[in-house]
């Protein structure tokens, strides 16, 4: 029972991070119809910069700020180099390859600069030794903090997108960017802002997930990208609420299967979930089916 509750807690905690990563993916998908295959590496950069700066004696707050700004800046670069030049090319082949390339380049730069070994991630939120007791099980305070912060950000973003003028602009661009431009919405700025915020979210998610896992290495983003994508697909591409539900579901499933069986089995479960959802209900639990445009 204790073990079950611990697995549940860690599942909810990583699941909330998947939702956060998924939200970042969704944000740029809404505005440009581009899925950033390099997002995983941006998570890594956020965590890596934080870890390296703190290790060199920088104050935590300053380190996190620099890491987040770096992540946001990288997304702007990705928009300029990997997304915008290929927007006019027909099909998605161009941007899939170029955003993946951006991710691999970041991974290469990180390995070159910091080495390929895993770096220990410092305690940014509480200490890994802090626990609270719940139904007889000890649960890490870090798990709880990560869960609360992630869910809070997702909910706030959802509210922001639904209520604010910028939120309306994002949704208008998502619906039809040419029409949005005709209505006087500064499409270009909305797109750039969406990439910037997506970068910030990726940075935060990278730091949070490293806090739970304890280490960061140049290659760690790819799995997270895929799991976040699975969460988004399960919840429904384009639905922030959906990615939260999908993320939590996937996180819990992954930890329970991983805990009771094996971590490799957990990955296979995630993959089967992805194939299953795409085959049976491609729009996910809360998404709308895509309309055909003639």
């Amino acid at each position, binding site marked *: 029972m204790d073990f079950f509750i611990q697995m549940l807690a860690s599942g909810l905690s990583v699941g909330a991070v998947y939702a956060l990563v998924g939200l970042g993916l969704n944000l740029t998908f809404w505005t440009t119809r581009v899925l950033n295959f390099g997002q995983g590496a941006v998570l890594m950069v956020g965590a890596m910069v934080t870890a390296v700066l703190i290790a060199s004696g920088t104050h935590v707050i300053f380190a996190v700020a620099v890491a987040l700004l770096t992540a946001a800046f990288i997304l702007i670069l990705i928009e300029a180099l990997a997304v915008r030049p*290929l927007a006019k090319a027909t099909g998605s082949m161009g941007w899939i390859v170029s955003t993946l390339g951006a*991710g691999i380049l970041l991974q290469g730069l990180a390995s070159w600069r910091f080495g390929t070994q895993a770096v220990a991630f410092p305690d940014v939120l509480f200490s890994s030794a802090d626990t609270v007791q719940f139904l007889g099980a000890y649960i890490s305070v870090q798990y709880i903090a990560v869960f609360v912060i992630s869910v809070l950000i997702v909910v706030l973003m959802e509210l922001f997108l639904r209520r604010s003028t910028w939120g309306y602009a994002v949704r208008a661009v998502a619906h039809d960017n040419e029409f949005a431009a005709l209505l006087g919405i500064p499409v270009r700025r909305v797109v750039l802002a969406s990439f910037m915020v997506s970068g910030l979210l990726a940075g935060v998610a990278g730091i949070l997930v490293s806090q739970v896992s304890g280490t960061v290495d140049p290659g760690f983003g790819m799995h997270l990208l895929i799991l976040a994508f699975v969460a988004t697909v399960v919840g429904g591409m384009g639905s922030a609420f959906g990615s939260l539900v999908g993320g939590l579901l996937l996180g819990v499933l992954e930890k329970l299967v991983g805990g009771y069986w094996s971590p490799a089995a957990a990955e296979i479960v995630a993959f089967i979930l992805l194939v299953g959802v795409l085959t049976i209900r491609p729009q996910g639990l809360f998404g709308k089916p895509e309309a055909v445009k003639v």
Partner: protein
Amino acid sequence: MKSMLNKLQGVISNAYVLIVLMLAMAVAAPFSDAGTVQMWCFAAINVLLAQSVNLLTGIAGQISLGHAGFFAIGAYTSAIAMTNWGVPLPLAVAFSSLMGTAVGYLLSIPAGRVREFYLAMMSLAFGLIVYELLREWRGVTGGVMGMRGIPSAQIGTLELFGIELGTVEYFWGLLFAVLVVMWMLRNFVKSHFGRAFYAVHVSELSAGSLGISQGATKRFAYALSGCIAGLAGGFYAFLVGYLTPESFTMMRSVEILVMTIVGGLGSLVGPVLGAVLFTYLPQKLQAFNDYQYIVYGLVLLLTFTLLPKGLAGLFNVHTRFSKRDQLKLTTDANAALTMRTPAFDPLLRVEDVVMEFSGLRALAGVSLELRRGSVMALVGPNGSGKSTLVNVISGIYAPTHGKIYFQGRNISGLPSHVIAQAGVSRTFQDPRNVPAFTVRENVLMGANRLYRHNALSAAVNAKWAKVEESRELARVEALLGAAGLSDSGDKVIGDLPYGTQRLAEVARALASDPELLLLDEPAAGLSEAEAEQLVGLIRLAQRHGVAVIVIDHHMDFLAGLVDEVVVFEAGEEIYRGDMDGMRTDPAVIEAYLGAEETENA
């Protein structure tokens, strides 16, 4: 300089040069040192891998980011088959490609319903999972320690029917496999299968209207790609004699993708260039090894912007998608369409069809009947539902209510490719040709539903395949003549004027030898001479008993052509009858010009 480049282009793009080069290597192999031949073997395996990605990505437009997964499955399958079960070499390698085929097919099961990037992400996940499985499934794969002691050409433990195979003999076998695969790929790409792959790549909507199932086509592409990658894996296992999961990481998938993209997607020569380049670079340049990730990242990031067609594009290599260069034609101008006997039963019956888009009623209960050999015009103001009706009949939309019978069979709500297969052909409001294809290839693509020969016949150029291809080529020739396009048959359609593209699209629709032809504003943007050609094509169809529905605004164009006019407004029929009656009908006049002022001011 320019002429030298041209000569180089000619040499590089010539398939025979490639064959001669390969033969020269085969002859030179026994006289070269083992290390060199070993490298050639690796290059050959990379060529297979790059061709496998090229077929999937360059031709069918589906991206695989996990090709190392197929490669690994192939390698481990044949290694296990030989070491554990004693399966002889050729069978083991064949077994590898079978496994690759099966896994490729399974992986692409959702392909019919989702866009490419979902599959790309899935393939990425697939690659990572295969790697994890190789590490975790110790009992079968040997885990992180890998599999040792696989019979290998390198150390002289590989045997075939009791004869020991060294690296040179192995290279010969490998080279032969590469030649056969490339020859088959070339024939395959030039067949209706290749055209279907490319049609799905360019526009799924348009592919459906040609009777091509996008789901089945994508699954076939994945399965074939898996087959070739599995084959490469099978050869790899007996070359190195030692397999570890670290040879099949995500970076391996990225490397395969880089080779293909740098070489040039969509051509047969490109992947060869890319594979050879990226086999030798890491060997010759230490710096390349140190910064491998950075280099690959940069290549993927920038190639599509800077060099979209890769090295092959630099040498101006064009892939052609028909076997016209291989076949002799028998031209027979009357053979373009089948003669149909007139029938009294209506060919098409639309019964009370309603189409709603989230509350908006585009069609509010439309009914009509159409017989063979008759031409019906749909007329009405913009947004009156004409195009929607054509889209509903051709299966792009499933109607909200109502039924559509075609040849007595209810086709409402069937997928567009099934309806097209049944003999309903259409054109679109804006032409949806394949811009990179020639006019001839585009028109030939229309004939897709008439082909019966299978993929293997297409790949080995069996007699059956040749007969069908030359028959269709002859029909296309006749149609090009009828459309006045004989002179531009071999020009790339994307470079031609708008009117030519439209006429070609109508010819393409006729190439399917349809029962029912749906034309959505075919005369828009045509010159007078082109409009006459169009009238000629429609009359040709009518004479052969094809039923035609044509949407247009040009009354002069329609006047001499149609048997019946149906006028729509706001999704409802407001007039049905002949052209003269329409001009004087008060409801039609009101819809077009607005109501007359009746009050006295």
